[in-house]
């Protein structure tokens, strides 16, 4: 039974983490890797846009007008003769930033809030979740308008506002997960070892609740991007000449019969991002589920 070798001990001393193992498993999932690299590519392009964009995003060429894709303008131009590729690149900066930042805000608040409510339970849970219910009931638009009126319009506030709304569902999912997990004996075992509640939540509950959270996160990012488009459309978000994928798509939709490329290319950018997110999300969920490992 006892195989006391140096490698065993080295192995043990190295320690292990769920995340290292997850990464090893994720590396074997080709689709998830493709998703990951596409996302990274989009992010890098978005960061470098001011230096690598083929045109300035304000540059108009009214003589040209809306023209289909060509050698000078790979993805064509819009009615003001602005380069579509450049617009998509600049739009991506806003959309990706809104998507990821607002979702991170939602994720951090939602998971923490839900985990605490679910773990502590009783009166604390009741108060915390009634607060969530109240925020749910608050008309979202009024909330945003109020924020804009009080603090003035700025993109960062937009992230916060969207995040502040999206965390509600996240908190509910997390609370449900934690409530069922904390009935399990391994949580009781952790208590009897003397671990503090915050350690139990961090080490034992959150890792086991990750599956649904990740899936919901990959759904939240696109819905946040579309929400930004909606707000911008109402004049509450970003304003032209600044742009985002959502705005480009809504303008493109108006003229899709005459100039279909104005809808197709921004639409493709959004769709590719969503695909990548879904592939990566599925891959992450499987990679973090140690029981699903195929070896």
């Amino acid at each position, binding site marked *: *039974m*006892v*195989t*006391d*070798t140096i490698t*065993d*001990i080295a*192995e*043990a*001393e190295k*320690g*292990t983490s*769920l995340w290292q*193992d997850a990464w090893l498993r994720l590396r074997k999932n080709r689709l998830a890797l493709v998703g990951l690299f596409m996302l990274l590519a989009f992010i890098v392009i978005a960061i470098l846009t001011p230096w690598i964009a083929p045109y300035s995003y304000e540059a108009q060429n009214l003589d040209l007008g809306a023209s289909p894709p060509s050698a000078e303008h790979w993805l064509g131009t819009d009615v003001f003769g602005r380069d579509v590729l450049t617009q998509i690149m600049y739009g991506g900066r806003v959309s990706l930033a809104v998507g990821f930042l607002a979702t991170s805000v939602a994720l951090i608040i939602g998971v923490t809030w839900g985990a605490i409510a679910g773990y502590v339970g009783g009166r604390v849970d009741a108060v915390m979740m009634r607060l969530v219910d109240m925020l749910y009931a608050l008309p979202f638009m009024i909330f945003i308008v109020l924020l804009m009126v009080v603090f003035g319009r700025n993109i960062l506030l937009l992230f916060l506002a969207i995040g502040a709304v999206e965390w509600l569902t996240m908190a509910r999912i997390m609370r449900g997960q934690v409530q069922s997990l904390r009935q*399990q*004996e*391994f949580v*009781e*075992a*952790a*208590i*009897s*070892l*003397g*671990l503090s509640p915050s350690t139990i939540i961090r*080490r*034992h509950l959150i*890792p*086991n609740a990750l599956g649904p959270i990740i899936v919901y996160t990959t759904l939240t990012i696109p819905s946040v991007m579309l929400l930004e488009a909606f707000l911008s459309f109402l004049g509450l978000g970003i304003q032209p000449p600044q742009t985002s994928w959502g705005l480009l798509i809504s303008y493109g939709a108006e003229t899709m019969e005459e100039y279909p490329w104005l809808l197709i290319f921004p639409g493709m950018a959004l769709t590719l991002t969503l695909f990548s997110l879904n592939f990566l999300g599925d891959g992450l969920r499987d990679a*973090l589920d*140690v*029981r699903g*490992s*195929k070896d």
Partner: protein
Amino acid sequence: MALLDVNDLAVSFVTRNGVNKAVDGISFTVESGKITAIIGESGSGKSVACYSMLGLVPMPPGRIDGGTAVFEGTDLLQQSESQLRRIRGRDVAMIFQDPMTCLNPFMTVGKQLMEPLLIHKDVSRDEARQRALELMDEVGIRDPQLTIDNYPHQFSGGMRQRVMIAMALINEPKLLIADEPTTALDVTIQAQILQLIANLQKKRDIGVIFISHDLAVVADIADQIVVMQEGRIVEAGDRAGIFENAQHPYTQKLLAAIPSDSKTPMPEEPEALITVDNLCTWFGDGNKGEIVKAVDDVSFEIRRGEVLGLVGESGSGKSTIGRSILRLVPVTSGRVEFDGIDVTGLEGNALKNMRKRMQMIFQDPFASLNPRMTVYDTLAEPILLHGLADKKTIGQAVLKLMDDVGLARAFVRKYPHEFSGGQRQRIAIGRALATRPEFVVADEPVSALDVTIQSQILDLMQELGREYGLTMLFVSHDLAVVRHLADRILVLHKGELVEQGTGDSLFENPQQEYTRQLLSAIPGRSLLA
């Protein structure tokens, strides 16, 4: 001629990892009016063999590789699904392990009883209802007129199993397949259900296949016993032959795994490590305002170095006592003194330090280990938390612990799902011992395990108990196991202490009626003599 003649039946499962021969050419017969018991551990193929005959094994991944199963002249394996459907529930009926999951919670018991009758026989609803009432009476459900329109949750576990039996019998089947029908039940209820099955089977002259993991359970009722291991029959014969003259080493091992001895109590009586005074643990029942007195005014002491057995049926409060001492449930009133310190009032760091000194081993090793933590993480966590090792020595400490509980060091980076139940319980024991506690509560630590694994784990616990100088509270519903392990035994009933004494005094001279009931319900008590 035999009622059912199974010849060379082979069933396999085709999985990603290859073909798994679940049943590898088995032959046995079932006679009318006789009980054939199929005994084997989980994974031995005992259930698959019976389910495959009735077309209840999903195919694929399942696949019947060959053999015949002739039931009254027809080969069940050659029947189409629609032909099998006519046989199932009419000529062959089944009873399953867990009556709660097998009954539809949204249908009254009466409706569920009438359903098979209405499907298979041409009877009116009134006749069916009449028949249901008769059967409920026959299986020993009191006042069937009053309870027939109740829902399953209004019945106790034992009563639900009686409903299942009535449902199985309502179409007058010729063959009854009972798959672990008493495993989920308390020991006294188990004895009643076993008696009921035996009586009904004699009265109606039907053949019964009784599938079980536990030889002791069938010791009193089986006519024929078939012992299976890894898809093969290792031994078969009549009851006397198996119990008195087992040939195959595996059967002998199964028989030896039934604990039959009594631990010799400690010679001297050491001082008490834990004193429990008038302990009450009550639970409020949600909104109804009802109070469940799980533990009601219980006092006892646990002496340093002894194993104290705590027996009782489900709902007797035996687990709650253990959890109250460990401060895993809030105590309503009373004192629990551990080495002179009142545990019930501890908070913060004092509580954390106390937790280091007392630990728990849980019943279900599949639920008590965090599925996302490797063995290393699980075992290292308590050691690091209580500062018993630092970053440099932790690796060695974990490996030492693995050696102690008999886990190969190579498993250190594996996750719980990669282990068998017995190995998982070893991990759980390792975790409990990681803080080098003085006192351990073991809550049914072997009841989720196979019989032969049970004895290994019990041996391990005894050995480690000596090595670590442990005081142990051993909670179990299984009197035989407790007698084998414990210096003294407490009997608990409905939250109150009924009787206490050494194993021998309790078994040979029980003072209370309830203790006598418990003792007479031990399955296979003839083996314990």
